């Protein structure tokens, strides 16, 4: 045990003490869950040499190498570095950024969630904060990366706008709308109930004549979601936020957290205490 040194220092390097004495899991930074095949090869080589022949894929799209001996931790870090594989976040830091592929390859999304996730990683991961912060991006309201259970969650949305001159009255939009937000009127034109509409864009994607087109687009931002011992879903905080605005908003939310949060207090707990309006005032500078 005397060998393990300062545990908090080790955690900074993504090294997590396991149950067995002298064994550590090496957590890696794998933003948005993407690894090149070269990185995979290097990972396999290093895990094979220093571990028990398997790696663990984490619930945040990350990867850990379990069972590494304390004496080998630095060697593992050094061996992975040339492949661009860096230690991940433990403790009070921004955790592995989650993102679905979004519009890069998914038919449901209009926004490139992966690109935003990568931008968030580049700007925010690797620094110390007052508490752990989990951020996830999804390209559409199907929310595959569970943004609503993250401290800050992004859900891609598109607003459907109708050009009635292009509409042929086929009613496919009414048929595909999962929310029942579209109904065809007596003139065979679709009517949108904006109360029910969640801006998923299925109608836009389905429309054969481009009568439904994209109006505003951007991310719905949820704040204060968390799981753990006292789960709660994030509260809707902003809508149609652009990529650049998203980065600035994260900056402000983190500043709010740093100012109002007690040590180790998750954003959701802080908001429960201060109220969402306090966050809104802080972000708006009012």
């Amino acid at each position, binding site marked *: 045990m005397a060998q393990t040194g300062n545990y908090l220092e080790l955690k900074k390097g993504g090294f997590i003490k396991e149950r067995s004495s002298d064994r550590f899991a090496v957590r890696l930074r794998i933003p948005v869950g993407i690894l090149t095949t070269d990185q995979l090869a290097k990972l396999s080589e290093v895990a094979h040499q220093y571990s028990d022949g398997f790696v663990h894929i984490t619930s945040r799209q990350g990867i850990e190498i379990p069972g590494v001996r304390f004496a080998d931790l630095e060697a593992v870090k050094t061996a992975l570095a040339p492949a661009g594989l860096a230690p991940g976040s433990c403790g009070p830091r921004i955790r592995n950024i989650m993102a679905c592929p979004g519009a890069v390859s998914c*038919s449901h999304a209009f926004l490139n969630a992966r690109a935003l996730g990568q931008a968030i990683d580049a700007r925010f991961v690797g620094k110390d904060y007052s508490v752990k912060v989990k951020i996830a991006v999804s390209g559409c309201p199907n929310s595959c990366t569970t943004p609503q259970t993250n401290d800050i969650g992004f859900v891609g949305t598109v607003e459907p706008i109708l050009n009635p001159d292009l509409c042929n009255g*086929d009613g496919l939009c009414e048929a595909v709308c999962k929310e029942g937000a579209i109904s065809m009127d007596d003139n065979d034109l679709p009517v949108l109930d904006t109360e029910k509409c969640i801006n998923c864009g299925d109608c836009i994607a389905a429309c054969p004549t481009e009568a439904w087109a994209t109006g505003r687009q951007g991310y719905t931002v949820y704040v204060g979601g968390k799981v753990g011992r006292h789960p709660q879903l994030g509260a809707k905080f902003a809508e149609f936020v652009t990529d650049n605005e998203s980065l600035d908003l994260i900056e402000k939310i983190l500043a709010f957290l740093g100012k109002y949060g007690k040590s180790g207090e998750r954003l959701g707990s802080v908001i429960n205490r201060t109220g969402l309006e306090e966050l809104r005032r802080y972000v708006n500078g009012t």
Partner: protein
Amino acid sequence: MSTEPEVKATLDLSGIVCPENYVRTLLAMEELDAGEVLAVILEGYEAMTNVPRSLKMDGQTIVKVERLGEEKIRLLVKKTARL
């Protein structure tokens, strides 16, 4: 709305799930010449959402959609892109 365009072939994919319905539609489209129209019957929410969208993304033209039931449509698709 103009009269229905001439249909070269009809494909009834009732009860066929994704992606088999899309694949069979593609195979049928291959048999068409440019500008010809295929009628496809699709059943089920997934089929109704995915197949027209995939065809649109492929560059084909959806000329008409006819509701046959709550979760059933007859889709007329014109071949406007090479496969």
